[in-house]
């Protein structure tokens, strides 16, 4: 083996090891979900008789589909709402910037640096008084606000890459601002909009802090579903694992199906 092949081999091996370390907890969780409770806490073995008992019990205790449906509603709902608000904002920032545009963008990003727990009490009280506690509407609002800075930023960078001339040509052709956005801007930046949307869906799906604090039963999404299995009577590893597996499965499949779109969107503009 010559040095360069060796080097590549070493780097490859290292990458695989790191990837495996990162992936291992997920792998172990999926595995544990197919064990019995006794096997789960006893010897950590790879050899056992897989069983679906845990899944059956989990489903008996709580209706998975109801939580999953809540997750779908809040993640897609908040993403849609965020896009509806962010597309016009990013349009105006990218194409009609003022002296304060840069500052506004930085301020928006700075709100992401504040720990969410810092505003938990005011938001909780606000939700309590407006009847938004434990409602999907409430979660959609919180997730939209949570993701809006990132969504606007991403769209802004995608829009900025679009030659201004094209929109001006549209204006000469008689397009109103809305038509400009619908017929020219959106189709031309679709990969970017799509990847922004996908990211927003994933972030909302995985969000746990707000969903645990603002929901109990009616609007609880899958993150709350997982948490409900760490009960005061003790931890049931197999059931917890089974629940977790079911909670992350949809978003994993979703991410896997859309990864091409995601990568294309995130590198959009970089390789024109």
């Amino acid at each position, binding site marked *: 083996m010559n040095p360069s092949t060796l080097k590549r081999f070493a780097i490859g091996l290292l990458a695989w090891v790191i990837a495996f370390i990162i992936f291992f907890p997920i792998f172990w969780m999926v595995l544990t979900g197919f064990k019995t409770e006794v096997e789960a806490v006893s010897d950590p073995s790879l050899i056992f008789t897989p069983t679906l008992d845990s899944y059956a019990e989990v489903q008996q205790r709580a209706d998975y589909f109801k939580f999953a449906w809540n997750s779908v509603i809040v993640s897609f709902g908040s993403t849609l709402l965020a896009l509806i608000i962010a597309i016009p904002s990013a349009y105006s920032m990218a194409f009609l910037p003022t002296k304060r545009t840069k500052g506004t963008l930085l301020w928006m990003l700075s709100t992401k640096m504040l720990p969410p727990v810092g505003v938990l009490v005011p938001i909780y009280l606000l939700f309590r008084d407006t009847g938004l506690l434990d409602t999907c509407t409430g979660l959609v609002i919180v997730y939209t606000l949570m993701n809006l800075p990132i969504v606007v930023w991403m769209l802004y960078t995608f829009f900025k890459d679009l*030659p201004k*001339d*094209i929109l*001006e*040509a*549209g*204006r*000469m*052709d*008689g*397009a109103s601002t809305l*038509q400009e956005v619908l*017929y*020219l801007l959106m*189709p*031309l930046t679709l990969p970017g909009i799509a990847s922004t949307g996908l990211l927003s869906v994933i972030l909302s799906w995985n969000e746990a802090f707000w969903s645990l604090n603002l929901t109990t039963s009616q609007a609880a999404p899958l993150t709350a579903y997982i948490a409900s299995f760490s009960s005061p009577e003790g931890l049931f590893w197999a059931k917890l694992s089974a629940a977790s597996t079911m909670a992350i499965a949809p978003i994993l499949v979703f991410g896997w199906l859309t990864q091409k779109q995601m990568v294309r969107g995130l590198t959009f503009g970089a390789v024109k």
Partner: protein
Amino acid sequence: MATLQLKNVIKEFGDTHVIKGVDLEVKDREFVVFVGPSGCGKSTLLRMIAGLESATDGDIVIDGKRMNDIGPAERGLAMVFQSYALYPHMTVEDNMGFSLRLAGVSKSERKDKVLDAARILQLENLLDRKPKALSGGQRQRVAIGRAIVRNPSIFLFDEPLSNLDAALRVQMRVELARLHEELDATMIYVTHDQIEAMTMADKIVVLQGGEVEQVGSPMELYHHPRNRFVAGFIGSPTMNFLPVDFQDANADGVQVTLPGGQGCRVPVNGEELAAGASLELGIRPEHLNLDDNGPMSGKIQVIERLGGATSLYVQMDHGMITVVADGDIEHKVGDTIRFGFEPFRGHLFREDGLALESLQRHPLTAINRQANRAPADSGDDQ
């Protein structure tokens, strides 16, 4: 009918004065070219006419109607962009028909109009293609087609040929001239290339630093530049400027002493010149003749043979001078040559850059492209 008037149009971006009060009149069916170095404000002026940029002050009047506060689409103009600005996600047909689609024109009518324009530009075979499957020249034609479909009162072109290679540029230049004739439309064209301006324009507007330096037919600008800037900008190779000593002025012109010490009477109006005035002689390279008895001499530094003509870069005592001579001359680098010029070919510029007015107008100054083509058309102009 499509006319345009600019009345004291001003554009400021913050403290930057981009356009400093432009007055201009564009007649119906005229081909007007805005020309000037980069940053002179020519594109901004065009964008203001288009409505893509607002005017800080002044009036933009199209067909007698003030258009300052009217949106780009309602002004009845069409614009061809330097980058073509085609819609990448639409076919050629959809690109050309987009304005009609927005205007709610029926699909069949749209198709007819697009086909008409496609025929004029020989684009019929490309209607189903996307812009990225077209060559530069084809994209350019689609951009023009998109403008034609709108049936505008005035066509605006923003450096439309600058992204094409040299050969294609010449071809498109001819095509645009033909199109102007065929469509019989008013056109305003922005370029930094004085050859495009000279070859296509009925009227050239020379801009510098946001101000109009001169407006006139190509031959007027060439033979009677109003100032040193226009004289240097129009014509290629660029005009030579030599410092000369003012002797006297009378009804026959101004007597000056050339760098070599010989005298020359240039037929320009020097009535207002004070004794000892500092003057500069402007003489175009193509108006210098090799002449063994000529009043000036110098040593050849560089020779550029173009076949039909030869450019000689000659070192004189005061600096370099360019001489365009016959293509067949046998001179070599290092030769000393003598040359002269016919006095009426000379221009004299005062210290402030303004040209002294010629005593005789050049007979071709009234000629523009329209007059070149058909005498009947020329009545409107000049």
